[in-house]
């Protein structure tokens, strides 16, 4: 066998083995999360090594309990509200700002691009204590709307940066035509730039939604009142209050994970573009 063929065979074998390994380590935790959420407490405690799920014994009780006894119905609606509000605010401000940075001439334009990137590198753990202090002082800390503003600040720089890169690829001629025809700048953005940028806007929206939906640290530090909890905050609360009932924590984890994974599998290409363009912090 030639070296070429030998190595080719080795590579093929390694590839199959490697792929199986990765599929196993990536898929298993998600599989286990879902399977465990359908088990009863008895099953969890007495048969911890049972890898399968008996179809006849599927138990929705964990979901019922988490949704109605542990307030997750409320947390879901809070998370939806927080995430959508963050997306709407972040995408609108980033569109307007990104347009200004790309198309308008002003002093400090170059500084802006670097400045944006710099801001985006600031870690949350450095910001959270000072924000905690000042919001506590002002009596604003335990508030969903303040949380939205914090998420806005976390996502806006990247959103603006991503849209700026996209706007630069759009031809300016159409906008000039619009301006000559008597459109205002805002009119140009609304009628020309936004329709042309639909794919980029979708990427940015998905990216922003994911950040807001998944965020843990600020929600954990800021929110005290259970009625205001987001899902992530609620899961932490639940995990701290139940000991053996892992099926409850898993059911709660499924509820916070599934929406984002479904969204991701539907719009995979969009999100991948958003991730690589924005180089998401994490």
């Amino acid at each position: 066998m030639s070296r070429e063929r030998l190595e080719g065979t080795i590579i093929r074998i390694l590839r199959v083995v490697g792929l199986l390994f990765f599929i196993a380590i990536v898929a298993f935790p998600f599989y286990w999360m879902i399977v465990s959420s359908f088990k009863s407490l008895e099953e969890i405690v007495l048969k911890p090594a049972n890898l399968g799920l008996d179809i006849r014994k599927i138990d929705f009780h964990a979901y019922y309990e988490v949704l109605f006894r542990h307030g997750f119905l409320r947390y879901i609606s809070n998370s939806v509200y927080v995430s959508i509000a963050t997306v709407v605010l972040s995408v609108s401000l980033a569109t307007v700002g990104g347009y200004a940075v790309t198309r308008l001439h002003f002093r400090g334009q170059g500084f802006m691009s670097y400045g944006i990137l710099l801001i985006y590198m600031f870690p949350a753990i450095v910001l959270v204590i000072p924000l905690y202090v000042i919001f506590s002082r002002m009596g604003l800390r335990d508030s969903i709307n303040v949380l939205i503003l914090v998420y806005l600040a976390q996502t806006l720089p990247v959103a603006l940066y991503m849209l700026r890169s996209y706007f630069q690829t759009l031809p300016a001629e159409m906008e000039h035509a619009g301006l000559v025809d008597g459109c205002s700048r805002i009119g140009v953005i609304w009628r020309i730039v936004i329709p042309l940028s639909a794919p980029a806007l979708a990427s940015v929206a998905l990216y922003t939604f994911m950040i807001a939906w998944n965020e843990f640290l600020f929600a954990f530090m800021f929110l005290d009142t259970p009625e205001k909890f987001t899902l992530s905050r609620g899961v932490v609360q639940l995990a701290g209050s139940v000991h053996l009932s892992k099926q409850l924590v898993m059911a709660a984890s499924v509820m916070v994970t599934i929406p984002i994974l479904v969204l991701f599998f539907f719009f995979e290409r969009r999100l991948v573009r958003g991730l690589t363009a924005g180089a998401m912090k994490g």
Partner: protein
Amino acid sequence: MVNSQLKRRTPTLLNQESRLAFWMLVPTFTVVLAFVIFPVIWNVWLSLKPVSLGDLRGASLFKFNLALENFQKVFSDPDFVQALLTTLIYTVAGSTLSILLGLIAALLVHGEFPGRGLLRGLFISPYIAPVVAVAFTWSFILDPQLGVLNWLAVDRGLFAQPIPFLSQRWWELDLMGVRVRLPLALTSVILFEGWRYFPFAFLFILARLQAIPDDLYQAASVDGASPFQRFYHITLPQLATVLSTLFLFRFIWTFNKFDDIFLLTRGQAGTKVLTIKVYDYAFGEFNIGASSAVAMVLFAVLSVFLLIYFRWIAKDP
């Protein structure tokens, strides 16, 4: 006077544009100023004052009584050096592992085969899923009492007894007669870091792999280079830039990572990194000043790395 001369020389249209740009950017500036720049400056102030969690209501928060006390306390804490060391091990090992796994995954998925899109999607999911969900799932899997991993391993005779992966500091190992002490919880947390963040490296490396021109490989094939030689002499050099950039980014972010360790171990069993110290000082000892001082240390390290990034890497796009 200089100002008015400048104004006269600038065309009105440009002036108008500047003003418009200003108004379009005001919301962004305000948000960033209030929620990013201000906290950083405010943190400097807090780090120089004796502030406890109980002082948040009184007037002392704004009193001008600055001192270096907090830094003295932080640096003389016997835990500090240990936390710094743990942070460095966690950061270097975690970044390296996630990039290595990302590289392998990208090489596996690169090329044409059925189901490739699905695999790519699957491989990114650890990174997309909420950190609370995956952290609690892994804690459950690794749990010594109810965890599936320990039960399976004990049933199959792999482990003599369940191993508390996330709550035991050291694990004594007998490697061919040599006794080795492995920092168990720290290793588990590093493995989690590799698992959760390899997709980040995977995405970037995959994109770069696809951009390598095919003729390079064809030319090498014609010259008789074997697949492994082609990988070593073409693929790796082509990936050098993206790998070093990834390492820098992962290093910065892992150094400042809080969520993952906090959710997995709360910083117990030898996993106390500096970010956990920030939290512990503030909410364990109610010492906001010391907490802010640790945050300043993190920020100083970050600044050094950002400087490196903007000086040497961001220069050539």
